């Protein structure tokens, strides 16, 4: 397992973090990630672009739920135990619609939730960035920017990134390695 080095910078304002993230876009590091107490779409667009798959997963979940319950109803009411009530057709599809729609929406919601957990990498109760001092305030009023380097990256790259970070005047810069 390659050891990784993380540079974690703490800011006390959202705009400061946004400026820093934009300034360091081209820094030669493996990954940059921001940890903020509020969603910041202006930073998301270049930090983690394009995760529009959740909608697609939800759609598939919805279709799967709908298909499952509709086909079940058809099998049970038409093939397994058809009941002849006044000669009415056993495949009374309008009557099968309510349960189908209900389970379609349920399937979509459950699939969306599962997709959220998968994309967000949850549950994950320990993450190395949590070792940065004061990180508990990332969910309250501090904004953290983390740059991740591979251990094999030259020290100069890490130093250069540290210098550029220092120019942006964060509250702290921490170097973590694991």
């Amino acid at each position, binding site marked *: 397992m390659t050891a990784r080095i993380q540079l974690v910078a703490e800011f006390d304002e959202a705009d400061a973090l946004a400026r820093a993230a934009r300034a360091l876009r081209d820094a030669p590091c493996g990954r940059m990630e921001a*940890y*903020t107490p509020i969603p910041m779409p202006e930073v998301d667009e270049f930090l983690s672009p394009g995760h529009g798959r959740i909608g697609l997963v939800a759609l598939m979940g919805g279709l799967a739920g709908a298909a499952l319950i509709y086909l079940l109803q058809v099998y049970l009411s038409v093939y397994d*135990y058809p009941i002849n009530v006044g000669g009415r057709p056993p495949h009374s599809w309008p009557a099968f619609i309510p*349960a189908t729609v209900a389970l379609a929406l349920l399937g979509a*919601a459950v699939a969306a939730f599962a997709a959220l957990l998968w994309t967000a990498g949850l549950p*994950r109760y320990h993450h190395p960035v949590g070792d940065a001092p004061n990180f508990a305030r990332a969910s309250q009023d501090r904004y953290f920017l983390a740059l991740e380097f591979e251990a094999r990256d030259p020290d100069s790259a890490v130093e250069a990134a540290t210098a550029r970070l220092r120019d942006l005047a964060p509250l702290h810069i921490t170097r973590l390695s694991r």
Partner: protein
Amino acid sequence: MSEVRENGGMGDGTDTPSVTETTSALVLERPLHWHWLIAFGVSGALVLFLVYAGGVLFLIGVGVWGINIPVVWAFDIINYVWWIGIANAASLLAASLVLLRRQWRATINRLAEAVALFAALCAAILPILHLGRPWLFYWVFPYPNTMDIWPQFRSALTWDFFGILAHLLVVFLFWYVGLLPDLATLRDRAKSTFARTAFGLAALGWRGSSRQWQAFRATYALMAALVVALLVFMQSIVALEFAVTLVPVWHGTILPPHFVAGAVVSGVGAILVVALPLRTALGIEALITRDHLDVMGRILLGAALVVVYAEAMMILTAWTSGDGDALRALDNRLFGPYGWAYWTAAAGIGVVTQALWFAPVRRSPPAIFAVALAAAAGMWFDRFSLLVGPIHRDFLVSSSAMYQPTVWELALLLGTLGIFFTLLLLFIRLLPVVSMYELRKLAEGRRLS
């Protein structure tokens, strides 16, 4: 809304640390107050009463209730429809606010979702209790069994089962997803190890990374859209339980829209009845402001007008139908022995809510509380009138009997109120009642998405 200021209508002095501090302090630091204890005691006692009544019901049978032929559905279904209406409308409101990106939703949303979830739980109990053999309720689910039988999928009651199932799970997931960032905040602010562990487990390790926030926003908006679709649909299924029957007043296509509008009246009314004492008790008047009350009052008024219109259409349809049964049933419902329930409902929904046309009423907490209470109670009487009115005089003149609730049925109403308020009281102590991350975002001067 020109009156609602851009910062979400919040009062002054609500910058980022103090919003987080105020709200999390409600959960983490506020000591047990005797108000809460008394309220919890009362609602807990009502829950015990319901448990006792449920025990009597299981042991002796449905005969302990006042229902019989021809009034086969009364308090059990009245309370079910009322609660499920509250649940549906509260989540409908919450989800609509998310989708419309209204800045002021931040404080009302969490509470509305909680009201929705707890009301749905109360509603879900009742269809089980009203079965002749409630311990066999799972037969409604199509599982392979040794009896070689399956549920009747063409029955509105089976549709309702799937609807409630979907409803409970979707509303719970919607609520839980919205809670995740705030659970993380509480985890990080918690002082005791127990609180930190409990919130930490619930927060699933949320760190607020950019990737997580992006996935979160996409999922939350998607689930809001699903909730809106599900709940309009779900409330229509509840109405279909009545509309697919042959009972004169029930058998009409106006019923699903009527039920949806009626649900909004009782749901918004319930949210206001809950929110108003809460804002005073928790000292969060700066977070749930008069602007919020103003907008909720308008929604309530609009929904009440739709209900009045739907009622008028029901009457017009029956009156011009030339169908003797429909005319007799209409006349009986309005002017028969249970007409008092109809006119009480009309007063609560149609007359008292007209006060909401006036801004001073909407913006005054005691006034709008009274109107909301009248509207929600009026909806209960409307359900009573709808359930009992048409069926106590049946097609056959000989099938006619009065209905009187027994104490075990009153236990259903009081007991479910007890469950609702018990859960609500626990909620305000254990979880943040307002959405901290949304308020934080507003305080930063950013728009909500």
